[in-house]
């Protein structure tokens, strides 16, 4: 098991070094990238075989239980999918012209991309809260380099904002972790410093007011990284300026990782603080996030910013799910994470293709896609229905459970407010997508670019989200994994 983990972490690191060295040609890099991704996927599957959902793997630095396997699954799925899809994306980008200026850019792209996924996997595997913080800080820095990959003016601006806001947030989180460590010191001495397993078992010994202060800092810190309301300002800029695949990973995998770390801290803190204060805190920030997303979705020009704000809205829903803290709602939040990651990746990829086809990000100038590019249009339509939480796709079921548990909790007004805010989001997104799809095409599209290599992957991801939503009970392994994970979050760790 230990060797598997080392293998999984080592491979991307090695490939990153190879890619940066510029030793291989671009074509070789494309193929090598795919091989590495599939091998890592294989190793992960092998790990799944060895460890059944109920079991826990505990070693000196690494800790693996159902919750981290679930989030790791999300990251790995996105990793393999984007690896297979990036070749056609980069080739098109190359044809479009801007990539052709400096030869080694594709190598640099692959290196940063693999390092990015490596750091995310590291965050999910580590046991120590401090090291988790280090991992999260590393993801921020590497993804910053990826966001500023094109080094255009707006990319620079977006990266600067991304780094400043996130590092400020992360510092607050570090302060929170320090205070938590201080609380652990005063309560149970110095051994097993900040180890998550130890803290989650002895959570109730900690001094309540100290842990509350610590959790406030941790919540604001990792809240910035997740993209909660007042600290969300970096999110639209970073997602709209990054290359499409990377923004797909950012919104799908990175946001899920930071949410994972927030959940880890939440499990420690709940026994002492109790759920009352936490629920209000989560509700306030979640509803603020969704409310802020609505105006930006209704009046919007840029297609990727539209998707960024819809990610914000989904983050708000997840935080509400966490806030209710009942087993149904937490299970629904984890399911929501998986669905959202899949669908958001597909949508960002399609947005990238649309931008390459029409040479513009401005949605106001894209019309008549149904005639011009029917292939992309159908996928865009399906993606839009998926992200708006329409039934056949998985998001509907997780949204249904979260809102129902909100009603079950007695907050009728909050539930109704949330449903109408989601209707507001629909008004915005639907209008923009309809403008793009229908009507007569004024600008000639470059071509129907969604060719045969990547459509099967998108189709597989969408069908996966349908399967996750409709027939989760039928999938044996995933279902028990989800139940076990939500049990960990709600019931505290039982070894």
């Amino acid at each position, binding site marked *: 098991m230990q060797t598997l983990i080392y293998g999984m972490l080592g491979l991307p690191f090695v490939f990153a070094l190879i890619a940066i060295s510029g030793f291989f040609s671009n074509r070789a890099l494309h193929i090598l990238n795919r091989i590495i991704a599939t091998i890592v996927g294989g190793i992960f599957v092998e790990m799944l075989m060895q460890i059944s959902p109920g079991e826990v793997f505990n070693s000196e630095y690494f800790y693996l239980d159902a919750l981290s396997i679930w989030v790791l699954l999300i990251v790995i799925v996105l990793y393999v999918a984007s690896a297979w899809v990036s070749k056609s994306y980069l080739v098109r980008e190359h044809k479009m012209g801007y990539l052709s200026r400096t030869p080694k850019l594709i190598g640099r792209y692959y290196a940063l991309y693999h390092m990015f996924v490596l750091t995310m996997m590291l965050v999910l595997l580590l046991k120590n809260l401090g090291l988790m913080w280090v991992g999260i800080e590393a993801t921020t820095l590497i993804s910053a380099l990826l966001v500023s990959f094109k080094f255009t003016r707006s990319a620079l601006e977006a990266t600067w904002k991304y780094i400043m806001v996130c590092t400020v947030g992360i510092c607050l989180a570090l302060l929170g972790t320090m205070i938590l460590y201080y609380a652990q010191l005063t309560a149970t001495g110095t051994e097993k410093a*900040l180890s998550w397993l130890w803290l989650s078992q002895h959570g109730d010994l900690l001094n309540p007011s100290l842990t509350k202060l610590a959790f406030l800092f941790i919540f604001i810190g990792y809240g910035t990284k997740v993209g909660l309301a007042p600290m969300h300002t970096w999110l639209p800029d970073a997602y709209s300026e990054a290359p499409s695949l990377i923004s797909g990973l950012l919104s799908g995998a990175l946001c899920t990782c930071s949410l994972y770390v927030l959940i880890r801290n939440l499990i420690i803190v709940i026994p002492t603080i109790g759920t009352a204060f936490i629920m209000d805190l989560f509700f306030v920030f979640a509803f603020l996030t969704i409310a802020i997303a609505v105006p930006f979705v209704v009046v919007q020009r840029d297609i990727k910013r539209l998707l960024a704000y819809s990610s914000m809205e989904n983050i708000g829903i997840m935080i509400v799910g966490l806030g209710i803290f009942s087993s149904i709602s937490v299970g629904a939040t984890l399911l929501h994470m998986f669905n959202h990651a899949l669908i958001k990746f597909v949508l960002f990829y399609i947005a990238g293709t649309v931008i390459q086809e029409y040479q513009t990000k401005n949605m106001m100038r894209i019309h008549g896609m149904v005639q011009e590019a029917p292939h992309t249009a159908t996928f865009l339509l399906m993606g839009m229905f998926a992200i708006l939480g329409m039934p056949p796709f998985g998001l509907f079921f997780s949204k249904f459970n979260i809102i129902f548990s909100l009603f079950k909790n007695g907050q009728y007004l909050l539930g109704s407010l949330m449903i109408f805010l989601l209707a507001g989001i629909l008004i915005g997104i639907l209008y923009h997508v309809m403008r793009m799809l229908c009507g007569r095409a004024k600008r000639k599209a470059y071509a129907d670019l969604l060719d045969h290599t990547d459509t099967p992957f998108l189709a597989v991801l969408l069908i996966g989200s349908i399967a996750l939503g409709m027939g989760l009970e039928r999938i044996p392994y995933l279902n028990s994994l989800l139940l076990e994970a939500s049990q960990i979050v709600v019931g505290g760790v039982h070894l």
Partner: protein
Amino acid sequence: MEQLVMVLLFVAFLQNRIMDLRKAVACLCLQSAIIAGACLISGLANGNGLHSVLPGLLTILVKVCLIPYALFRLVGKLTDERELVADINTNYSTALSAFFLMLSYVLVDKMLPGIGDRDIMASSMGLILIGLVLIVMRSRAIMQIIGLMTMENGIYLLGLAMTEGLPTVIELGIFFDVLVAVLVLVILTNRLNVSFMTTDTNVLRRLKG
């Protein structure tokens, strides 16, 4: 240990007042030196051997030598704007920092009534909020980096004062992160300078809505 925290607070207030880039980097270097000193003293005080000395040496190496050297090289490259044109006069930032210090003291008394080292906790929270004020009030890219570093130092001091040093692995991780963060920030400021011909972040206003 308490006296060093007071000195660091004083230097942070000084940091707020400085307008010139070179002086600001020098002040940052001073802060890091104080932190390194505090780290060495606490390391030697309660235990010997490499474990206690290593953090101190690392701070000196990273925060006192490497980072200021990088910033000085950067400032050297900015031919025209060595002198900083103060758009927001410094009194507001000092007043705000004082207010935040007072606020953190009130908060610590409210939240943790009979805590042991009350003033260390309060002053480090104050230091972090002063760092925040520094970033918000200055529009120069380098000043924002310096603000960020003051926040880092504040947190590191808190860790040091309260818990007599974190486990070495975490210590190393944090240093590594701080170093990479500054490295990336310096690369970006260079790019900023190349494409925008200025490092004033007010120029970065195009991504709206």
